C-alpha cells in the first residue's frame, strides 16, 4: 500500500566537464512510495526551480527501462538496489522512511561527466561502428524463412540482444571494463547464421576498438552481470573470449 517517505538526498553536482564537482544535500518530504525514482527527482527539481536554484541534470527518456538513457549510481550501485531494473523503473517503495540516498553519475574514464549526473557514452556507439552489425545492403535479402534457426539459438541470441546499452556494466566494474556490453553484441550475431561470415573479424575489430576507447581489462569479477538491468549473462563473455582466441589464431596462421 502507498505510504509517504521523508528522505535525505546526497547528489553529485558538477557544472560541466571542467568543474571539479561535489555532493550537495537535499531534504524531501512526503514522497509517495508509488512514485518512480525519477519522479522523485522531478519533485526535487521542481522545488529547486521554484526556489530559484538550478535543477539537477540527468539523462532519461522512455522511463520504461528500454532506451538505456537513465544512468544513476544509487547508494553505490548502478540503477540502485533492485535486481534487474533500470533507474527509471525503480520505485520509491524500495526505500525506507528517513533513509539517506547517495546519487552519483557513472564513473569511468571512457564516460566523462558532461553535467551533474549526465555522462558521455558515445564510446559505445563507436564500438558498434567498429563491427557491431551484419554487412548486408538494403534490398537484397532472401525470404526470411529460407534459413531455419533453431529456437534455442534464436532465444539465446535474443537474450544477448536485450542489452540496452546503458553502461551500468562499466560503472559497476572496478576496472571500468566494457566486456559485457561488447560480448552481448558479439554473441547476438555469433549465435545466428547471418552473423557467421563476419564472425571472426567482428570480434577482433570490436575488442580492438573497446581497448582504444580506454575501457579497462576484464578480471572476471562478475559485477557487471550482477548489476546489469537486463541480466545479461557472463556466458556471453566466455563465448566472446573463445571466439576471440579462435579468430586471433586463424588470422595469425594466414
Amino acid at each position: 500500500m502507498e505510504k509517504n517517505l521523508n528522505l535525505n538526498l546526497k547528489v553529485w553536482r558538477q557544472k560541466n566537464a571542467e568543474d571539479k564537482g561535489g555532493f550537495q544535500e537535499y531534504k524531501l518530504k512526503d514522497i509517495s512510495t508509488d512514485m518512480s525514482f525519477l519522479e522523485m527527482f522531478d519533485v526535487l527539481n521542481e522545488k529547486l526551480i521554484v526556489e530559484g536554484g538550478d535543477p539537477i541534470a540527468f539523462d532519461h527518456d522512455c522511463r520504461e527501462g528500454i532506451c538505456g538513457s537513465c544512468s544513476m549510481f544509487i547508494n553505490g550501485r548502478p540503477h540502485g538496489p533492485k535486481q534487474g531494473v533500470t533507474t527509471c523503473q525503480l520505485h520509491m517503495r524500495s526505500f525506507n522512511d528517513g533513509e539517506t540516498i547517495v546519487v552519483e553519475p557513472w564513473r569511468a574514464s571512457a564516460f566523462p561527466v558532461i553535467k551533474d549526473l549526465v555522462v558521455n557514452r558515445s564510446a559505445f556507439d563507436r564500438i558498434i561502428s567498429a563491427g557491431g552489425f551484419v554487412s548486408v545492403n538494403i534490398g537484397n535479402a532472401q525470404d526470411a524463412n529460407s534459413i531455419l534457426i533453431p529456437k534455442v539459438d534464436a532465444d539465446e541470441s535474443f537474450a544477448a540482444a536485450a542489452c540496452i546499452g546503458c553502461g551500468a556494466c562499466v560503472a559497476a566494474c572496478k576496472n571500468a571494463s566494457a566486456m559485457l556490453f561488447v560480448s552481448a553484441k558479439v554473441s547476438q550475431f555469433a549465435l545466428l547464421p547471418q552473423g557467421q561470415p563476419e564472425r571472426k573479424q567482428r570480434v577482433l575489430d570490436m575488442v580492438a576498438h573497446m581497448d582504444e576507447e580506454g575501457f579497462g581489462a576484464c578480471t572476471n569479477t562478475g559485477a557487471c552481470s550482477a548489476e546489469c538491468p537486463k541480466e545479461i549473462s557472463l556466458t556471453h563473455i566466455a563465448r566472446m573470449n573463445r571466439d576471440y582466441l579462435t579468430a586471433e589464431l586463424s588470422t595469425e596462421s594466414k
Partner: protein
Amino acid sequence: MTSKLDSKIPEGNLEQKWTKYQSSVPLVNPSNKRSLEILIIGSGLAGASAAASLSELGYKVKVFCFQDSARRAHSIAAQGGINAAKNYQNDGDSTYRLFYDTIKGGDYRSREANVYRLASVSSNIIDQCVASGVPFAREYGGLLSNRSFGGTQVQRTFYAAGQTGQQLLLGAYSGLQRQVGMGNVKMYARHEMQDVVNIDGVCRGIIARDLTTGKLERHFGHAVLLCTGGYGNVFYLSTNAMGSNVTAAWKAHKKGAMFANPCFTQIHPTCIPVSGDHQSKLTLMSESLRNDGRIWVPMKKEDALALRENRIKPNDIKEEDRDYYLERRYPAFGNLVPRDVASRAAKERCDAGFGVNKTGEAVYLDFAFNTIRYGKMEATKKNMHNPTDLQIVEMGRAVVKEKYGNLFDMYQQITGVNPYEQPMMIYPAVHYTMGGLWVDYNLMTNIPGLYALGEANFSDHGANRLGASALMQGLADGYFVIPYTIGAYLSKEIMTKAIPTDHPAFEEAENIVKATIDELMAIKGTKPVDHFHKRLGLIIWNQCGMARNAEGLKKAISDVQQLRAEFWSSVRIPGSANEMNSELEKAGRVADFIELGELMCIDALSREESCGGHFREEHQTEEGEALRNDVDYKYVAAWEYFAGNNWELHKEELIYENIKIAQRSYK
C-alpha cells in the same frame, strides 16, 4: 487553392502503381550522389533506416537526434510487433488483405495508393530485418512465429517477445553505425533541430542547437528529411518517451509545410492507469496481451464499488457476475477489436460507474482463462493424465511468461501487483498520432526538398492506426520508399552546389531561433515548464481526447490561448542558454505543443463527423458507434499556417476506386 495539394499518385491500377513508378522514376548517377547532401532529423525506425539506405546508395548524409545515442530513439520502446503480409500461417493473408484491413481500420480516411504500397513492401521488411540479424521469435521447427493484433482475423504480426521495437531499431541502428564507421554518415547526437531554412521556397537546410554547449549550428542539405516521430506528448501524459515532441514538424509547419489531420490521435486501450499527481508518463501494456487477456468489469455496480474501496478482490467476483463487454458487444472480433473501439468501450463502462480502481478509471485484463487453457495443453503434450489444478496453473503460467514475461515484470515493477495472480488493471492512454505533416506519394511535404517519414507524417493510418503497423510504416518509408522517391527530386538538383551557410537565409533563420531562446530566458517568471505542460495536457485530454463536442472544443481553444499568454509571461527557466539546460529544451517544446493544441481543437471542431479516434459526441449511431459522414468529410484536412496563429484549411479529397467504403463493423 486545392492546387497546393498535389498528391502525385501515379496513374495505373492499384497493384501496378508502385512497381511502374519504381521502374520509371528518374535516377541519380553514383558520382552525382556523392555531392548531394541529405539531412535526416531523427534516428528512430524511419530516420535510421533512411540514413542506412541513402548512405549506402552513395548520398552524403548527416543524422541528428536529441538523445545521447541514435539507439535511444523512441521507436526502441515499441513492444508488440510488426505486421507483414507473408501469409506464413497459411491463414488467408495477402497484400490485398493487409491493405484492406489497414484502410478499414483507419475508418476510410487514408489514401489507397499509399496503403497499398505499404502492404506490398511489408514482406521485404521482414526479410531485411532477419538478414541484418534481428532475433525475431521462432517456433521449435526454426520458422518465424506470428501472433494476432487488433482489427484483423489473421496472424501476421512478427515479434521479439515484448521488445520488438528495440530489436528492429537496434537492427536499423547497426546499419546506421556501420555507415558512420565507413564515413558515409555523420552523426549529431544531443542535437535538436530548431528550424528549417528555406531559400526561394525550397528547403535548403536547418538550424540545430548543440544540447551540450547550447551553441546554434547551421547545416546545409539538398534535401531535409523530418523523421521526428509523433506529437502525443501534447497531452503531457502519454506512452511516448519524455522527450518526444512536435518541434521539428511544427517549425516546418510555421515555415509553410501543411499539417494534416492534427486531431487524429490514438488513445490506446491497454495502459497502466494513472496512480497520482506525480505521474510523469504512462506505460503501455502491449496490444498483443489481448491475444490471451480477456477484458472485463463487474456486472454489478455494488461489486465495482467494493473493488474501488478495496473490500473485495477481483478473483472474488464470480464468473457470471463479470461483464466481458467487448466479447458481448463485438462477438466477431471480441477482445481484438481496433484500439479506438476498445478504448471508447472502456470509457463507456467506467463513465457508467463500473470502473475498478480507486479512481474508478480502470478495467481488468485477465489472463486466468487462457493460463488454464495453456496449462491443460501442456499437460496433454507432456502426457500427464491427471494433472492437479496447481500443476495446470504452473504450466500455464510458464507459457504466459514465455510470451509476455517482460510486460508482466514491468507491470509488477510499476504497480507492485503480481499479474500472474491477479488480473491487470488497465485504462486507455494517449499513444500515437495519425496526424502529421502533409506529404505526397513521394513523402515530400508541400515545401520542395522537405520530406516527412514515419510517425511525423500523416500518411497511412487514416483516423485510426492498427496495431503493429507503425513499425511497418517507419521501416517501409526508410528502407523501401524514400530511396526511390527522393530520386524524383534530387535528379533535378544535381547542378545545385552546396549553399554556404553564411547565406542571408541561414543568418536570418539563426537570428530568429536565437531571439526566441532569448525571449524565453528573459521571462524569468515563477512557474516551471511542467506546470504549463500539465495544464495543457488536461485541457486537450478533457476536450479533445476520447470524446469531443463543439462546445468543449470551443472552450478548449480559448483556454489554450489563455494558457499561451500565461506561459509567455510567467514561465521560469533557470540557468543560461549557453550550457546543457533541460528546462530550456522543455520550454521550447511546450511552447510548440501549446500552439499545436489549438490547431488540434480547431481541426476537431471543423470535422463534423465521427471517424476512427475522432469521436464527436454529436455524431454517433444509436448503439454509440462512430457515425462517419462520407459525403462531406471524405478528405484529408491540411492546414496552412499564417502569422499570428491563423490557419487556412485545404482539402485533399480521398478517392476510393478499389474498396467499397462502408460503415466499419466488428460485430
